[in-house]
């Protein structure tokens, strides 16, 4: 058995790849569902219904998809420029912390300095602070990479733990909500800063629109602007990009700002749209899921939206399924992981074909 390069990648193959990957994923995971002792068909039906089968299911899936789109975009932007940002999780938390620091209540109202400001301006300040916090966190890693050649995978990954401990310290110390009965959680945001709901009796908030709009904007930046082309060029071949006169370091730094800012925004949006205060479990790994989503989407900004909805739907649907047929809901993580692997294989198969030759085995 050996791999052989195909002469070209056809459009049909590119579209068929994700579909085949999902089919393969469902087939593989069916074995696990079976093993758990549940009827496969019914389990999958429940999964589908739980994720997409009703107005409520959709509202939950979209709520879950909102931060995933943002972290997915964050990772996609960085990876496109070959900056391997594994730190979206930490950037998300730092962004959320900054948002609470700017927009949090003091004695039941906005902070004294903020009371003079119009709500709109305060909102912009809160968002900017959150994005800046995430961006600066990644900027440090990018600076170490471009100047000293320090591997950003290591620095961004480790920064996650530092940030989590830092947030934990803040939530147990200076930023702790004294009225939270001892729980490590921050003060809530000023109510006027919270994002509006999109649907009645649901948790879907306008952060979803923001995330969707950013996906479209990023797609346009990639496709139509000099900066987008330079990012792709630097990511594909930094040496050649430098030779052609592109400012490689500057492009990397801007990509870092953008990526970190998007992850920070995910934190802002979660606080302002969903919880209104910061806790240490605000993200069940959205930052890491962003890596999976970006890869599933082939780093394409619009693909990130689709991949986020898929992943969110699986996560939400698995909860319902586990309650009904007794398959542990960690099956969701397995499905997402298998989907990523299947997608990587499918992408490879668009470029290579497998050949089985009898000759090779004969000897």
């Amino acid at each position: 058995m050996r791999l052989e390069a195909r002469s070209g990648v056809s459009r049909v193959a590119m579209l068929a790849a994700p579909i085949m990957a999902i089919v393969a994923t469902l087939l593989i995971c069916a074995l696990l569902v079976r093993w758990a002792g549940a009827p496969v068909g019914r389990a999958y039906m429940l999964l589908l219904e739980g994720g997409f089968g009703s107005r409520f299911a959709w509202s939950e899936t979209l709520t879950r998809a909102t931060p995933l789109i943002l972290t997915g975009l964050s990772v996609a932007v960085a990876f496109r420029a070959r900056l391997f940002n594994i730190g979206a999780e930490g950037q998300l938390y730092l962004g959320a912390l900054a948002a609470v620091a700017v927009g949090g209540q003091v004695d039941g109202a906005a902070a004294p300095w903020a009371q003079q400001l119009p709500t709109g301006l305060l909102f912009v300040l809160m968002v900017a602070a959150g994005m800046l916090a995430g961006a600066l966190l990644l900027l440090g890693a990018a600076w170490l990479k471009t100047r000293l050649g320090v591997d950003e995978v290591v620095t961004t990954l480790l920064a996650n733990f530092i940030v989590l401990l830092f947030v934990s310290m803040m939530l147990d110390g200076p930023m702790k909500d004294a009225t939270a009965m001892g729980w490590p959680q921050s003060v809530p945001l000023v109510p006027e800063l919270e994002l509006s709901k999109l649907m009645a009796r649901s948790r879907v908030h306008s952060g979803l629109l923001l995330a969707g709009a950013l996906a479209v904007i990023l797609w346009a930046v990639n496709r139509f602007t000099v900066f987008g082309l330079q990012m792709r060029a630097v990511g594909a071949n930094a040496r050649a990009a430098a030779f052609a006169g592109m400012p490689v370091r500057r492009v990397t730094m801007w990509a870092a700002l953008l990526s970190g800012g998007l992850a920070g925004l995910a934190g802002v949006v979660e606080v302002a749209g969903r919880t209104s205060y910061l806790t240490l479990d605000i993200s069940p790994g959205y930052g890491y899921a962003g890596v999976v989503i970006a890869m599933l989407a082939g780093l394409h900004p619009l693909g990130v939206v689709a991949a986020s909805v898929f992943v969110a739907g699986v996560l939400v649907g698995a909860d319902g399924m586990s309650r009904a047929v007794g398959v542990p809901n960690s099956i969701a993580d397995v499905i997402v992981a298998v989907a990523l692997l299947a997608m990587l294989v499918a992408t490879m198969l668009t470029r290579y074909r497998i050949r089985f030759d009898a000759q090779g085995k004969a000897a």
Partner: protein
Amino acid sequence: MQVPILRLSNITKRFGQLTANDDISLELRRGEVLALLGENGAGKSTLVSILFGHYVADAGTVEVDGQLLPPGQPRAALAAGIGMVHQHFTLADNLSVLDNIMLGTQPLWHWRLERRAARDRVLALAERFGLAVRPQARVGELSVGERQRVEIVKALYRGARVLILDEPTAVLTPHESETLFATLAQLIAEGLSVIFISHKLDEVLRVSDRIAVLRGGRLVAQCAAAQTSKAELAELMVGRVVSMPERAARLDADGASEAPAVLALQKVGACGADGRALLREVSLQVRAGEIVGIAGVSGNGQAALAELTSGTLAAAEGHVTLAGKPMPARPRAWIEAGVARVPEDRHAVGVIGDLTVWENAASEQLGEPRFSRGGVIRRAAAQRFARELVARFDVRTAGIDVPARTMSGGNMQKLILGRALSVRGEGIVPLLVVASQPTWGLDIGAVAYVRARLLDAAQEGAAVLLISEDLDELHALADRIAVMHAGRLTEARPTAAWTLGELGLAMAGAGEGAHGAAGAGEVLHAA
């Protein structure tokens, strides 16, 4: 009749649409040198890769001594006595010569015990075949010629009876090539058989007994070396008659000195990222309308000189000026000054393979108002530019919207050349052309094309700095030639003033051997 030592029967190998080897049948007789001649992409490397078990043929068989060789198993090929010396050596720099030779031949746990015996065997082989190697030397410290000898000894150590040499002279000085040819004669005298892969006609005619010519994956001719000619081989290889452009009227030393110097280097020194000196006290002037050639064996600082004059390497000392102005080490500055730059490595530096042809065509000038406004690419303008460039420079591509990596090396080089020569806008000749190994690895048609364009540029008034390891190329194009060795550059003398012998001596550091080179350059400099 005697059984041939090696027989390839009806070998066919396809990669997707491309048929790399089409029904090739070939025999290697005992004690002969068979040359495989062909252009890049003719299928030579594929054929020997099948022979050596790197690839499995779609059809056809390989027999050694009448025994069928199992396909796809380099170990089986080694066991059957096939040894291969790759163009890019497969030696570990940090190990000694002896360790490199023994690597993979010993069971893991018995290494120490066998070492002395192995060393004796290596020395015995070296003596028998006249291959001077030092078993204890570290490979990283050896010259290219010595490394090649180690590769050959390595093959012999494993009991090779058939030796395959893939473009062995590509990395050697003329003198080192002579040594290699003597070695080949010795190998044949000792009963080995050799397959010699090359696209250089002169040396093929010199060293081989028989010549097999491949073109487009087919075996187009087999002939005895004694019964053919250079012209006939060239035509067989290319499939048509190709005339190589040459510099018509050369500027003599006096004529050139009247034109203003465009590029001037004054005692320039430069270091690599590891602090190793790459250039030492390099002085050079290139005048408008003049082609200055830089000769030298690969790895003596030519790459650094090209980077320096492309804006990707900073001078640590000395002065670099362009039209009288000092130049910073930023590619942007050199592009804006109107310097056409053709890098040595077209795949890794020249183009960005994942970007489209049009994006690559416009990549040097994206910021210019004609290609972007307010940071938004003027796609239509950039694509029009690319289409015209593709047409004017005869770039064969499936379109301007396909990834650049889908192009062949020759077409990639034409695209790079077109982009570089358009650095000041279409039809405006660049101030300076820096071309580093511009025809390396191209087929003859593309070579002729690239050379003609460089000649045109000089004719129209550009200063041309041509860095090439191909002495024929320098002779055909350059007005003056300077030789680089160990980071030092000789004075640039008119092409006619160099004899081949002198060039060879200068390339080898004036005959002081590869290691004592630091002083050798100075002697030449003073001369």
